[in-house]
């Protein structure tokens, strides 16, 4: 299950070799990048069982932009943690880019997060003692990239999010919008097929939030698959599909 990719993982998305667990691809058509099949997540809270997710089935195609919505307690965060390989489903199957997440051990999950996923959080989650460049470089550090190559790559990403001249700044010296741009650059630096965003505008004012959403829109337009959790409908309006959760089940799916 653990694969070793050559160090620079520049192009990875659609050219994955077929794994054993992969369901047969639809002949001719594209296969889903994210595939959930009757996924359940059950927590044991003392004596009571909490069904955070209760049978979620979902296909997300490459290049899609999904928003996951729902009231608090509906299972949004649980679903995002599952999609982000931070957690494993209690039952059901989760296949990410041809790899079955269900049986993976901690190391394999880490490897998957490193190569297949980029995270953007509500509270930015930059490491305060590192500079902007070092924060962006972080995934490359764990991928074992050479220092010079990863520095150049980080500069490239900083330029793309409009922070070329902030490379040596500390996160605390930046505004919220700038910090979120750094976080997006960090999430994109290893060019993962999927970008996960958890309330990316939650800590930003409306204008800055719109800018961040515009950036995400650009990224999606250039082919990046984005899955975003939000409870604001005007933010969710940026996504092509909107998945409404209620009590751990899919309530409805809107979208073109």
């Amino acid at each position, binding site marked *: 299950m653990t694969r070793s990719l050559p160090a620079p993982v520049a192009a990875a998305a659609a050219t994955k070799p077929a794994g054993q667990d992969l369901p047969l691809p639809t002949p001719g058509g594209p296969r889903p990048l994210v595939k959930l099949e009757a996924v359940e997540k059950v927590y044991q809270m003392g004596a009571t069982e909490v069904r955070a997710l209760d049978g979620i089935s979902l296909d997300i195609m490459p290049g899609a932009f999904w928003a996951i919505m729902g009231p608090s307690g509906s299972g949004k965060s649980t679903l995002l943690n599952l999609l982000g390989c*931070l957690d494993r489903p209690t039952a059901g199957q989760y296949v990410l880019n041809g790899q079955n997440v269900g049986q993976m051990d901690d190391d394999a999950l*880490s*490897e998957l997060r490193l190569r297949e996923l980029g995270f953007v959080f509500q509270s930015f989650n930059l490491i305060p003692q590192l500079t902007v460049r070092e924060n962006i470089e*972080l995934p490359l550090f*764990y991928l*074992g990239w050479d220092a010079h190559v990863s520095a150049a790559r980080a500069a490239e990403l900083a330029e793309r999010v409009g922070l070329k001249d902030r490379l040596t700044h500390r996160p605390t010296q930046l505004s919220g919008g700038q910090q979120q741009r750094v976080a997006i650059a*960090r999430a994109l630096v290893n060019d993962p097929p999927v970008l996960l965003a958890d309330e990316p505008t939650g800590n930003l004012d409306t204008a800055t939030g719109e800018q961040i959403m515009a950036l995400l829109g650009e990224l999606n337009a250039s082919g990046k698959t984005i899955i975003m959790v939000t409870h604001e409908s005007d933010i969710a309006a940026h996504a092509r599909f909107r998945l409404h959760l209620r009590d751990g089940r899919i309530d409805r799916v809107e979208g073109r």
Partner: protein
Amino acid sequence: MRKSRLARHIRLGIKTLMLHKLRSFLTVLGVVFGVGSVIAMLSVGEGASKEALEQIRKLGSNNIILRAVKPTEDEEMGSKRSFMSMYGLRYDDEQRIRETMPAVKRTVPVKSVRKEAWLNERSMELRVMGVTPDWFELLQRQVLAGRILNWRDVETRSSVCLLTEQGARKLLATEATIGQPIRIGPDIYEVIGIVQAERVGGSIQAPDEDVDTYIPIQVARERYGDMTTHQTSGSFEREWVELHMILVEVTDDSQVEPTAAAIEAMLKRFHPKLDYRVNVPLALRRQAQATKRMMNWVLGSIGGISLLVGGIGIMNIMLASVTERTREIGIRRAIGAKRRQIVGQFLIETVVLSSLGGVIGVGLGVGLPFLITHFANMPTVVPMYGIVLSVAISVGIGILFGLYPAVRAANLDPIEALRHE
């Protein structure tokens, strides 16, 4: 690439530690004093034992020294005023040891008398020792000027004498004195040389301590006899002593102690008054080594305890650091850091702290013994193994006490860690 990654890990570790300069400094200080005290303690122990071994070397480790001892409870002593006490080693003892013990290589019979001596206009009471040329070989004393006694001097009963350093000092003799006549008691001798004498110090007495001059044993025996008379508080006291000392050389290290035991058993039969003492420098050396080992353990443990305290300090601070940086750990895990990479990151920080402490501690540990020697006048030797050992231990302590916080950090649930405020 592996190497440069480690370098980057270390750089990151240092950077993180520099964020809390005072905290890191205080943590390092614990290890500094630990390592410093281990090295300083070992240096004091090493210095003391080196001194002891040096003292014993002066006695000759293959030698057994037999001395005549005046018995303390001589019943008739008190009643008779002019009693002649007979005690000490006999010519027969020397012969028996030499001829019956296979492991005995050589023996030196020694007579010791005190005589008034004159050189030029100067007169002093000297301690005169009658010895054979073997004496100088067994003790390996350095000849400072002229020559030592030879067998011809013994056979021809030549009137020659050899001054020791202190004897020469008493008589104000120099190299120029060699060849000149000296009067010892009623007789005239020719000075043939000056030889070194050693003083061991402490409770151990070197065989040539307090000797001023040597003459051939035959000469001493014929001219001064076995009886000496000295006046103590108005009464005369006469002593009959044949030999004051017998120096025995044994063929081999391993034979020293069995031979000493055999000699002791033999002497016991002929000397019911126990008017002798057997000194075995090798046994003293063994004792000194055992003492050294014990001292090293005791002193090393005291230092080790302070090192342990330093280690606990590191662990304490790292546990606090893990709690403080829970969110950072969560971020790193979410990005894709494996557990062992988190463990590595925290371990590197503790090892940087502890080995920095170790290096500074070595400086302290090398400096302290100087001060101890200077102010307390105690001999110290900084042992190389002590330096290597404490640096190794301090790195080990970094790993040992860093492991628990690091593993704790790595085992945090990334979801929980990300939610941590």
